[in-house]
């Protein structure tokens, strides 16, 4: 049995660590690139969103590398995502790959136990102690990466030498991927954070703060949003994002079953404008605008083209009392870098004007 799974940001690193420790044969398809996208676009239904098309491309490439068991998230009550696995399996079979898709339940009640049970099945009944220790190590890598990324977002606009933060981040990701015990992992994390601190200029600059919200996948997969965070960093903007995979795992796997929900605050903020969950991340998008209107200078709303929940959110957002400029960027295979950059520059200019006007008054 050889396992493959689609990409989403650096998610492959914790999974690789997990599977390596359990001696499971795991192939990583090439990171998202133009070829992946073309493959996905060619074999996906035309009206599908970019997450479907890119994961489709990943799955084909994984099957090409000999993967016969593919992992895909699925579940009910969560936009089209719940249907992806079924359709993608059809498409793979039509293409002549005999791969089986195993669904990772992301909406079921007992996520943690379901996930662990699935890993047990994949690992040919490894002992629980081994599974849990491997799982913990995977999580540690995930947390380390996200901790560094948060700092990188802050350093990008204020670094002394342009590009340092991105370079350090890439180095850290590589080192984390190679680390094979907790000690190394800790050292890598500490070193990287130190270097990032040193790279920061000491001047008292106050960069513009732009929140970034929207659909989970396009937020977390830089290839699908054309590296919008890096581009904003180049424009001297500090990016704030609440969506991180480590946050998701922390709450969905461990705290939600205990009755804690990090999203309650966001949902409450959205209530006057959107009273109910509409699947996907639509409710959160509206809530983040309301919640952070005072804190941020602007908000970038990322959504895949034809995404159902985000269209509803996009329609509701302009009507909120809390006033903050929002730039919606729809991601699909037609999104071009120059077009996006022009829009980002115009948006950042607008935010600068607003801030200047605010300072004057």
């Amino acid at each position: 049995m050889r396992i493959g799974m689609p990409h989403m940001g650096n998610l492959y690193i914790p999974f690789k660590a997990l599977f390596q420790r359990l001696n499971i044969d795991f192939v990583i398809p090439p990171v998202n690139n133009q070829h992946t996208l073309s493959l996905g676009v060619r074999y996906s239904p035309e009206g599908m969103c970019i997450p479907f098309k890119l994961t489709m491309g990943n799955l084909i490439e994984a099957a090409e590398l000999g993967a016969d068991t593919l992992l895909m998230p699925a579940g009910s009550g969560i936009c089209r995502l719940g249907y992806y696995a079924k359709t993608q399996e059809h498409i793979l079979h039509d293409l002549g790959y005999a791969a089986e898709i195993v669904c990772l339940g992301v909406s079921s009640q007992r996520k943690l136990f379901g996930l662990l049970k699935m890993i047990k099945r994949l690992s040919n009944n490894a002992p629980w102690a081994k599974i849990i220790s491997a799982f913990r190590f995977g999580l540690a890598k995930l947390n380390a990466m996200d901790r560094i990324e948060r700092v990188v977002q802050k350093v990008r606009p204020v670094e002394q030498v342009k590009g340092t933060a991105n370079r350090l981040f890439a180095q850290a990701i590589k080192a984390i991927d190679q680390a094979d015990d907790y000690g190394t992992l800790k050292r890598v994390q500490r070193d990287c954070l130190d270097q990032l601190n040193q790279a920061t200029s000491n001047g008292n600059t106050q960069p513009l703060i732009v929140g970034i919200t929207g659909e989970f996948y396009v937020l977390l997969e830089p290839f699908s949003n054309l590296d919008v965070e890096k581009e904003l960093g180049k424009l001297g903007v500090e990016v704030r994002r609440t969506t991180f995979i480590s946050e998701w795992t922390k709450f969905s796997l461990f705290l939600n079953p205990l009755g804690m929900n990090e999203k309650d605050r966001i949902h409450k903020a959205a209530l006057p404008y959107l009273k109910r969950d509409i699947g996907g991340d639509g409710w959160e998008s509206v809530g983040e605008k309301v919640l952070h209107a005072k804190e941020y200078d602007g908000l970038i709303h990322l959504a895949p083209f034809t995404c159902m929940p985000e269209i509803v959110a996009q329609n509701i957002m302009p009507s909120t009392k809390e006033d903050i400029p929002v730039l919606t960027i729809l991601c699909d295979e037609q999104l071009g870098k120059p077009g996006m950059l022009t829009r980002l520059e115009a948006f950042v200019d607008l935010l600068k004007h607003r801030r200047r006007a605010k300072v004057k008054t």
Partner: protein
Amino acid sequence: MIKVGIPRALLYYQYYPMWKTFFEELGAEVVVSPPTTQAILSSGSSRVVAETCLPVKVFCGHVLALAGECDYLFIPAIRSVKSNIYNCSKFLGLPDMTKAVTPESPPILDTDIDINKGKRELYQAIYKLGRRFTWNPLKVRRAAIAAWQAHLKYMQLMSDQGLNPPQAIERISNTTEVEPKTPPDNPTPPQATIALIGHPYLLYDEHINHRLIHRLEKAHYKVLTPEMLTTEELESATVRLVGGAYWTYEEEVVGAGGRYLESGADGVIGLMAFGCGPDSLMMDIVYRRAARLGTTPFMRLTLEEHTAEAGVVTRLEAFLDMIQRRKRRQAEVCV
């Protein structure tokens, strides 16, 4: 008398008789917006972002048409009507979205319908809705039961007599019981049978589909629609194709498509709206099924605001020509 407005769009075609009975039993007057026109569509699409799907744009137009004509608008948020099967986000957020994009609309009655939360929640939702009209819980109960009866009668009328929703609604609305309509004696028998699959709000909105049914009937084709199949037929076909539904209104696409591809039709036309989330997957499943079976021709027609009449007509003619040719060739082989 309190006037309750119901937009003639989206779920109107599925539930109008039920809703009408409910509100009338509670002593309210029901106002329906006029059939879709270009003006309604334009006014609706001027309010929402461009990516919004055609049916929702039409819906907003109907809401605007009702503004000032009624005291309340009835826009339920139908989350699920079967356990563990959920609806498209646009239906879930419909009341909130309408409120956001059409501030001039009358107050919205936004009942949450979610069968997954259990019967108690459902009854409470209905009672809360009824409370706007009467203090008497028994009266609400009576109205709800009458509404459910009306719905069952409506469904039966369609599957028994082969009526489509607009015809059935007309039949129900006419207080004088008209004779069951015998099809006009066509001197020529139908050339072939064409099944139309898709959501009722696309199939029966003559403005947005450019009078597709009318065109087919005028050219002497017998038209079949999803409502003419029984619930069991639809469900069993859905199970055969996808092993259980995922979306609330999946049967009318996947179920009907699967069934008509197997038997009963010479050709199947799938109508979908551009940018429709559920249909982008469901029509694809029907399309893959058609390709695998290779017995019944299948055509997808995607509708949006810019769909030109001439384009629809050309594709329709080409499809029908192909079906004619196939029929002729089959007849020759048989001889």
